[in-house]
């Protein structure tokens, strides 16, 4: 039965590949991430930067997809007012603030549990009011240098990914993990659950886009767990964009979003992550976009948008190169079958970025 399901999944993938817009449905799913109505309150995570994981009477549980995000809560008359907000995959120093008509609401931080990335607050959203909640670490919107880790391609190596998290935990300056796809081998619910549970070993959150392995399964559930494939956020003056290249292409809907994000980040330091490299420096392999001309058009757009860095996964090795003049790194060191004869092995990148100067350093950190 399992082999039949796998065969059907492969056929579905091939059929999707023959479609000209196989990622369109996922781009539409992106637009629905972070929305829920519960107990008379309509919650909307702005820009879909968190997933609604669970709603119970008086409790909203979110999975953060960015270091900082806002939630609009529109409460109807007679709606529940007391809400417990649980945010998983949050920045360890994240705080919740809430405003109604410019006036702050009283927020109570509940005692922290053993996991630094799970935060819980209580807030009272007055019935009939519209509140804006912000989940973010202090000074998240103030330009300042910081470091983060870039990782991709864990796939079948989930049982060993704890080694990587321990290595990341050993560097207290890394603020979050920027993950460029292929969390799992097939994108099944069991694997998504396992990835999530093993992520508990990390002291910092992981913000991801999906890879081609997340869409091998017949009914991909990635969005329900980790959120949007195409997303954009800012942190300490730096713009981060992730795009869904799971099919070796960018859907036109996602490209429209990208246009807006490039315009927003044009005058700032702007980094882009995606799973499948737009171009592969090893051309005969072409572990890259399916159409080189689409890739070139996208790169021309990124260069015109004054992008500062592209980070890719998919190829299980480390490459440093330039595409359309934009510094670029492939870092697929999460543990999936490594590229042989390259002397690299499991690794991640430590990226130091300064909103005033740009990308300062990108360092290869070996795990094995």
């Amino acid at each position, binding site marked *: 039965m399992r082999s039949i399901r796998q065969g059907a999944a492969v056929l579905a993938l091939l059929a999707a590949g023959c479609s000209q817009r196989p990622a369109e449905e996922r781009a539409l799913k992106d637009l629905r991430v972070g929305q829920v109505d519960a107990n008379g309150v309509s919650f909307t995570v702005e820009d879909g930067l968190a997933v609604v994981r669970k709603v119970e009477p008086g409790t909203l549980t979110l999975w953060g997809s960015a270091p900082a995000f806002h939630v609009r809560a529109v409460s109807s008359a007679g709606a529940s007012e007391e809400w417990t907000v649980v945010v998983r995959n949050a920045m360890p120093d994240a705080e919740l603030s809430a405003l109604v008509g410019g006036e702050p609401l009283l927020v109570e931080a509940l005692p922290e549990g053993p996991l630094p990335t799970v935060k819980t607050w209580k807030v009272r959203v007055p019935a009939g009011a519209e509140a804006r909640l912000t989940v973010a670490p202090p000074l998240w919107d103030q330009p300042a240098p910081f470091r983060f880790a870039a990782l991709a391609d864990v796939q079948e190596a989930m049982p060993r990914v704890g080694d990587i998290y321990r290595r990341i935990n050993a560097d207290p300056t890394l603020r979050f993990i920027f993950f460029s796809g292929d969390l799992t081998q097939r994108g099944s619910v069991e694997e998504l659950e396992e990835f999530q549970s093993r992520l508990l070993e990390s002291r910092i959150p992981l913000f991801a886009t999906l890879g081609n392995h997340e869409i091998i399964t017949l009914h991909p559930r990635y969005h329900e767990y980790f959120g949007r494939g195409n997303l954009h956020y800012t942190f300490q003056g730096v713009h981060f964009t992730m795009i869904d290249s799971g099919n*070796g292409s960018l859907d036109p809907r996602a490209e429209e979003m990208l246009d807006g994000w490039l315009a927003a980040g044009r005058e700032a330091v702007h980094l882009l992550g995606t799973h499948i490299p737009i171009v592969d420096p090893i051309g005969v392999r072409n572990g890259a976009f399916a159409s*080189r001309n689409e890739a070139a058009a996208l790169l021309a757009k990124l260069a015109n948008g004054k992008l500062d860095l592209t980070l890719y996964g998919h190829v*299980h090795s480390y490459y440093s190169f330039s595409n359309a003049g934009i510094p670029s790194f492939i870092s697929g060191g999460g543990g999936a079958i490594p590229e042989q004869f390259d002397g690299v092995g499991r690794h991640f990148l430590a990226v130091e970025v300064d909103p005033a100067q740009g990308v300062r350093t990108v360092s290869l950190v070996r795990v094995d």
Partner: protein
Amino acid sequence: MMVRLWVLALVVLALVVLPGAVQAQVCEAQAVAEVPAQALPVRGEPMAGDQEVPTRPRFEVLPAAVSVVPGLLLHGMGSLVAGDTRTAGRHFLLQGSGLGLLVAGGIPIAMSGASRRVIGPLYAMTLTGVGILSISTLANLYGAVSPAFPPGQVARHLPPLELEAGYQHVVDPAFDYRHFVSVGALARLNRVRLEAGVRLSPDEGNLRVRVGGAYRLLGAPEGSRGRQDGTALDLEAAALAHRYPAEVFTLAGGELFLRGRYDMARFSPRMAGSFAEMGVGFAMQSYIYTGPVDDILFEQLLFSFGYGVYLGRGGPFRGEAMLYYDHRKDDFPGGIKAGGGVPGFVGLRGRMLLSGPWGVAAELQAGSAVVGRVSLIYALGGEP
């Protein structure tokens, strides 16, 4: 250099797997004579026409049905049921060779993590396997139905110069362009073939120009085949420039390609009128952007295979049609959006001279984009 030698060796290997390919210059009559008479069911009628064609098997429903089920899984079953054990054996050999090459190339790719050190030859080997398997599949189907109709014949003489003009339609979600004017020229000078093609989108200004040539290493020149069959080996070279003014970049590059064609009548009289093609090559290209200049010269593995049929039977109507796979990612169709950027595109093309100097060509390609093209051909000289 080592990689290119490997690639060349694999093409030769693929051609050798097809029995008799190294004898490409042997005339068709001789080739037909090489097929042992006892391998042929002698139940059919001899073909009409002035070209010498062996006795062909009669169409039978059961072998045709068996060629589909279970023949699509085990090629040659239809021939076996029809009593043509020699063709069946060659099918088994062909399918087995394809599977073997696919496994021999595919497993090391997976185990090596598609290592940059070995990926070129391994992809070429894997694609050779896929190509042979595909050719075997199509030959198996063709062999099942071909007894139902008289086969086409390779054109004995093609014009020294063909000019064409047409229309190309492209549906690509990544680009706004749709309509293209397509013009081209093809000259045949004994063993040398020169080609040029231009695609221009008047609305977008998108312009693709490709000029190239080929030298026939083995096989009769297209312009004067006489009684020789279409089996041939060509070395091709081309230069390409593709300007994208709306997206503000230009692609420029050059390529070398070794293309082999094998007349399938050599494989079995059941396959008379059909041919298989396979080729491998290498392209170097650069994408040129305004402002920042990219510092990488990109390489590309070129590989194609296909199965086709000859159209016409010795009269003025002559041409061919072919279903094919092309591994390149830099043409209008791009690659299929599955498989992490690895697959190329599939296509179906036909080119035929109809009457007098006039002919038509048509092509349909599907990858990241769908491309359709129809052209009117004007031929100078080369009457049959």
